[in-house]
């Protein structure tokens, strides 16, 4: 039996409302309460946490690890190291690999890979449709049995509303949340950046807000019709926030996430034609950022996530309309949000920020994680809330280097990541 005591930190556990200086005890990889500490013998490992925040292990429910099929970009091993270095103890991997995760066989294969190579917990999502083709339902029930925690065609969006309705109804049978990448293909066309003054000036095809909003509205209506949960991924438009807020007020089971790059940068960054500012959905305007922040603060957007999407340098270093969408995110997301939302805007306190990375995604995914409660798996993130630092993508654990956050200065950083009582990374 091994015991660990994380001593003297500011313990923040939004799931229980705990927020104060104290100790956190772990025995055999599980949290234990103070009153259970009458165990004798064996050694106690002490982790001094004075001046640090002791939070439940952070959860990022939106990452791309590229395995199987594109292991030159990222692997389970390298991706989970990024997660650990960013303070994340659990991630949900998206199914748009090659082949796609659209069968129990692929789920099982990946789980074996994860067992061998992962530094943190990796939960899997399965495809909604076969091959992410948007035409036929994937074997959702079999994938649930194999262990997926959500279904999504992320990267693609099911355009056929009838099929989407059937997917929702079917997934409801398993209590499985459906995640949707909200993009109307007709309205977006070959758009690669926000449709606005900058796309007009640069001559780049526009990706209009309405291309997202119309699918958010569709998802709200289908969620209401089927009384089943839909989670809107990486929301970027201020209009989407308004739709979501109104629907949530009526009790619709709709939820949403926002990514740090959509709050940190605007479409003006594309002036450089640098493909590291190209992601799907695209960077938008300051007005959208303000509305997204409002949505995060009032709980309309209850989850934060990275959409960690590695691509090799040679793939990104091409003409911008030919470059793939997506950027790295796991190593910088906590720092970006803490800098922006806690320090600069003072829009959230640490407890609010941590809730959006722990109890909220855990509840959505029905995972018994994201809490420091006795009996839960001992996933912990230690955070230095005031540490100033600069991100150097050259030092990244990722196999790729596609980050627009290179050289950005942050305040706040994870300094130690503990998974099941075991330290997997520390600064």
């Amino acid at each position, binding site marked *: 039996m091994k015991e660990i005591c994380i001593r003297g930190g500011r313990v923040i556990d939004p799931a229980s409302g705990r927020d104060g200086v104290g100790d956190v005890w772990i025995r055999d990889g599980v949290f234990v309460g103070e009153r259970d500490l009458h165990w004798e013998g064996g050694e106690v490992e002490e982790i001094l946490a004075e001046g640090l925040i002791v939070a439940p292990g952070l959860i990022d429910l939106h990452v791309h690890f590229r395995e199987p099929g594109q292991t030159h970009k990222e692997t389970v091993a390298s991706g989970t190291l990024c997660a650990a270095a960013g303070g994340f103890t659990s991630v949900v991997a998206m199914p748009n690999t090659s082949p796609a995760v659209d069968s129990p066989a692929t789920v099982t294969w990946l789980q074996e890979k994860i067992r061998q190579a992962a530094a943190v917990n990796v939960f899997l999502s399965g495809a909604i449709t076969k091959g992410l083709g948007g035409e036929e339902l994937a074997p959702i029930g079999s994938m649930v049995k194999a262990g997926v925690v959500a279904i999504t065609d992320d990267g693609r969006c099911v355009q056929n509303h009838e099929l989407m309705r059937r997917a929702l109804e079917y997934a409801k049978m398993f209590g499985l949340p459906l995640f949707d990448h909200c993009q109307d293909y007709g309205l977006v066309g070959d758009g690669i950046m926000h449709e*606005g*003054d900058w796309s*007009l*000036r*640069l*001559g*780049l095809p526009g990706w209009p807000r309405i291309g997202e909003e119309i699918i958010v509205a569709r998802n709200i209506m289908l969620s209401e019709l089927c009384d089943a949960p839909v989670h809107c991924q990486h929301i970027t438009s201020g209009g989407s926030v308004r739709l979501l807020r109104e629907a949530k007020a009526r009790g619709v089971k709709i939820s949403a996430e926002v990514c740090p790059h959509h709050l940190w940068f605007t479409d003006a960054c594309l002036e*450089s*034609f640098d493909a590291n500012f190209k992601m799907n959905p695209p960077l938008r305007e300051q007005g959208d950022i303000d509305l997204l922040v409002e949505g995060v603060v009032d709980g309309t957007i209850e989850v934060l996530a990275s959409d960690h999407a590695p691509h090799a340098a*040679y793939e990104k*270093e*091409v*003409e*911008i*309309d*030919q470059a793939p969408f997506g950027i790295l995110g796991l190593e910088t997301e906590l720092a970006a949000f803490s800098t922006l939302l806690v320090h600069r805007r003072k829009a959230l306190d640490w407890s609010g920020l941590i809730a959006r990375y722990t109890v909220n995604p855990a509840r959505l995914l029905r995972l018994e994680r994201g809490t420091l409660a006795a009996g839960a798996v001992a996933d912990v993130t230690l955070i230095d809330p005031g540490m100033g630092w600069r991100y150097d993508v050259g030092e990244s654990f990722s196999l790729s280097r596609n980050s627009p956050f290179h050289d950005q200065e942050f305040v706040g950083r994870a300094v130690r990541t503990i998974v099941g009582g075991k330290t997997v990374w520390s600064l």
Partner: protein
Amino acid sequence: MNTWNRKDLLGIDGMELWEIEMILDAAKAFKGVGERSLKKVPALRGRTLVNFFVEPSTRTRVSFELAAMRLSADVVNMSTSASSLQKGETLKDTAKNLEALHADMIVLRHSSPGSCRFLADRLQASIINAGDGAHEHPTQALLDSFTMREHLGSLAGKKVGIVGDILFSRVARSNIHTLRKLGAEVFLIGPTTLVPRSFESMGVRVCHCLDDVIGELDVINLLRIQHERQRKEYFPSLGEYTALFGLTKARAVRLREGCLIMHPGPINRGVEIDSDVADSARSVILEQVTHGLAVRMAVLYLCAGGKGVPA
């Protein structure tokens, strides 16, 4: 005195007024060279220029080729079909290979906006934008303004209408930037689908009825309607386009006396412009082509290290 210090010409957006004027003044000096029986000066002797046209073009390529030859540069032409891009080589690698062959200047025509900037950021060689997607076509705008100035003198306060598919037009964008800097008033004219009101953020007037403004214009610049590329939802038919926005004989009558008729070419006779109107005395379409040569000589001369207007 201002001194030219750009190695590249990527676009008009971001250029200073004096830089534009320096190119136009240098073009004036080079215009004389083309009118001599010996049409060559030694300014770029020993320099190598590659015309790298990833998107097909004849007039712009020939114009750059002749401009470089008149400056005594060695010129190589490369088009998509002959290049390794067809074999999957990246633009960066192809251009790096050209540089390894000691190309001093690369004139790039490419369908991707920003492709010239992309190369300029990565190469020592001078990059001259000969059209990058819907972004910019700076030498076209410069030759358009040169032609206007030859006829109208200063462009300050002059009313210039640009008619047609503005949304997808690099010529329109470069013209907007050039004309605004030179003080002209710019009218963008065309259907709401191709001339969104958001262009007003660039300091121009947007107009969806040609007949409302045709009598005020000092210049009417008609853009080619690219019906081979046009997705049909932008307007119902060429016939309807011509009826609403074509410079027909009936409309040409309403032009002010002295109004210049311009077109970057190639023209679609009977679509954006009536055939006889294109050939009429007020049309300066072929002069634009001639001036293109002088403007491109000026651009190559300056970007190759010329410090100012040649004596």
